[in-house]
């Protein structure tokens, strides 16, 4: 009932293929797994991929968390690391449950737009198990999901939303492989589309007397499609978790953890605690996979896609009044009024134990520190640029003042001369003020996210850098037709500024005789390419240049944060990608960096 298509292409036969796809129909849904074993062209890669596939097939009926644990324990996984998507497209409810680890891209195409699924941490076997998160999201009928390995350029997918509805899934898959396949790598892509009808409508109607555990409330009573309730409890109830995602529960230990956290947050008497815990465990057992929590000062509300049986249990435990069938809500009275502090909310939202939360908080702090340092480094660069940018007009202004004095001494000044002098000077001063504005805008993150013109950004950055480029005799060219990108223009400016800065440093270090930076735009692929002739980066280090604190510059010159931040900005804020490679022709060589942007929203 769900449509699924996949393709795997090895790049050579020697090592076997490290990429794999497994799709299997099971009772509760469609199991989809796409993986990429780390290591390029090494002999054991293909073997390990085959082991993973065999394990998935053999244990396909197991719940996702168990399956993931099983895969994690396969010998070789923790030595190599495996990027993995492991998902289940639910047959009962319009939900996609999944794990997404390492360098796998997952998208959903919806309403002519491609959005990225949340991925976490490093590959399987490398990142700590407790940081691996399980997700559930609503999967609407006819929504297409695309999962692919790094053998396919991620930007390709962004080109496809418009075609998603017009093309058949198989054709769409071919299109992706045609457009984005990297000939130097294994590639795997799987594409699946939720069935067009509702989930329950396609199931044979059941006799009301034989209520099956997994059956949902609505499905048993009416021929209406089952949807997760979209209505939220009205005020004064507020959401307990800070996180927007559903708190997803997949195992009994997770349910217990959830209860423990919940009881830390809201005060329930012992009876209520016991009832709630047994209720949640039962709901889980009956196939309920997600839950949202709301509370006001007196009551706790749980919203979950429960089954008829679970609903009856709820009635018997909490009373008929406690159950709101249409909104799938259960209301529990609290022992005393409750105040919620923010860390507990976050923990509840992420289903984290105290220890995991500490790790999570540490990582957040580290990321913030990193961002702070990167910003300081960028500020330093910027101050240098302002100094250069101001030197020339300051010089001219200085000379004008001295000229004024001279004219006054020689013959005295007449009104016209003073006016002319004032006009010329003001023009220079305005120019300097504009420069300051440019720089201020550059760092302002307060601007709204909106559609901006890429060529305009290039022009702005060129203006900011013009003095430095000129002082270093760097030729700057820009060509190609512009296109529009949605996001913060200032972020793209920062990225370009970093790249130009790096080129400039490369020219200096390598002593490039005729330094040159070429920017070109290609609207058809929505790509901005920056090419310099600064000698490039040693092939062995090329893959590391986007890592934090990694720098090729002499000690004290580079922070190792510029490219790292650029990558973050490109992915998180500009919905694109950034990649660098070396080029050589004749006696020239350098670095090419490609910024690819996903398709612009057609509306607005």
């Amino acid at each position, binding site marked *: 009932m769900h449509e699924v298509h996949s393709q795997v292409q090895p790049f050579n036969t020697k090592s076997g293929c490290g990429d794999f796809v497994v799709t299997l129909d099971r009772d509760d849904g469609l199991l989809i797994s796409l993986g990429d074993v780390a290591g390029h062209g090494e002999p054991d890669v293909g073997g390990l991929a085959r082991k993973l596939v065999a394990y998935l097939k053999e244990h396909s009926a197991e719940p996702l968390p168990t399956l993931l644990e099983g895969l994690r324990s396969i010998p070789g996984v923790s030595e190599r690391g495996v990027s993995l998507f492991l998902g289940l497209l639910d047959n009962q409810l319009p939900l996609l449950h999944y794990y997404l680890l390492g360098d796998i891209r997952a998208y959903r195409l919806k309403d002519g737009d491609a959005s990225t699924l949340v991925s976490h941490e490093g590959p399987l076997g490398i990142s700590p198990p407790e940081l691996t998160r399980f997700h559930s999201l609503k999967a609407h009928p006819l929504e297409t999901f695309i999962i692919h390995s790094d053998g396919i350029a991620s930007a390709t997918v962004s080109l496809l939303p418009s075609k998603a509805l017009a093309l058949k899934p198989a054709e769409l898959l071919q299109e992706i492989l045609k457009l984005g396949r990297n000939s130097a790598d294994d590639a795997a892509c799987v594409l699946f589309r939720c069935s067009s009808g509702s989930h329950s409508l396609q199931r044979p109607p059941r006799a009301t007397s034989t209520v099956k555990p997994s059956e949902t409330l609505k499905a048993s009573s009416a021929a209406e499609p089952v949807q997760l309730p979209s209505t939220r409890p009205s005020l004064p109830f507020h959401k307990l978790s800070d996180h927007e995602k559903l708190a997803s529960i997949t195992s009994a230990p997770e349910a217990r953890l959830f209860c423990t956290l919940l009881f830390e947050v809201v005060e329930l008497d012992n009876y209520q605690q016991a009832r709630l815990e047994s209720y949640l465990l039962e709901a889980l057992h009956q196939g309920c996979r997600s839950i949202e929590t709301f509370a006001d000062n007196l009551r706790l509300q749980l919203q979950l896609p429960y089954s008829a049986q679970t609903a009856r249990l709820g009635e018997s435990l909490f009373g008929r009044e406690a159950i709101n069938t249409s909104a799938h809500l259960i209301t529990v009275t609290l022992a005393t009024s409750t105040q919620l502090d923010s860390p507990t909310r976050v923990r509840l939202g992420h289903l984290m134990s105290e220890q995991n939360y500490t790790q999570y908080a540490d990582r957040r702090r580290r990321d913030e520190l990193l961002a702070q340092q990167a910003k300081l480094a960028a500020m330093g660069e910027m101050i240098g640029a302002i100094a250069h940018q101001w030197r020339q007009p300051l*010089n*001219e202004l200085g000379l004008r003042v*001295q000229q004024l004095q001279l004219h006054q001494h020689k013959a005295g000044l007449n009104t016209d001369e003073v006016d002319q002098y004032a006009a010329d000077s003001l023009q220079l001063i305005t120019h300097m003020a504009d420069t300051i504005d440019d720089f201020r805008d550059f760092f302002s993150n307060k601007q709204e996210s909106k559609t901006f013109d890429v060529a305009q950004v290039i022009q702005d950055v060129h203006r900011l850098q013009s003095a430095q480029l000129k002082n270093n005799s760097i030729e700057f060219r820009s060509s190609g037709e512009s296109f529009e990108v949605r996001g913060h223009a200032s972020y793209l400016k920062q990225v370009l500024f970093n790249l130009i800065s790096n080129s400039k440093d490369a020219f200096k270090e390598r002593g490039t005789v005729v330094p040159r930076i070429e920017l070109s735009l290609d609207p058809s692929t929505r790509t901005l390419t920056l090419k310099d002739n600064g000698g490039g980066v040693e092939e062995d280090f090329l893959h590391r240049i986007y890592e934090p604190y990694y720098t090729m510059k002499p000690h004290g010159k580079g922070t190792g944060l510029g490219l790292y931040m650029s990558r973050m900005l490109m992915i998180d804020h500009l919905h694109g990608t950034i990649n660098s490679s070396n080029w050589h022709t004749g006696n020239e060589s350098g670095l090419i960096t490609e910024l690819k942007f996903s398709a612009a929203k057609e509306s607005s």
Partner: protein
Amino acid sequence: MDEQAEQPLRGLNLVCADDETTALTILAEILNSAGATVRTAKDGLQALEIIRTHPTDAVIADIQMPVMDGTALIKTLRAEGFDRPILAVTGASKHDAESILASGADHYISKPVITTELIHTLVTDLRGTK
């Protein structure tokens, strides 16, 4: 004495090179009113031509110039045996001073140029050695 104070550069032939023509024109005017004969050039190559063909007592050269930059100009002049004072003017930061002086310049002046100081330097160098 008065005349000396009014026109401290009287009788001197100077060459000024800078591609920022407005700044160059004003500088030339100020030096000219201090008594010097000033020839201007928009780049290093032009400056080189002028210096080769005209008697020159001192050169004031911007470092960042197209065609032939200040450093190349100074090196060429020194290689050709030009032994008069050369003042390098630059908008670049102080730590580049060393390499500029190493190319053969006698002085290093950073922008914005204060003409009284520039004139003082010229007078000390030229009148002192004469």
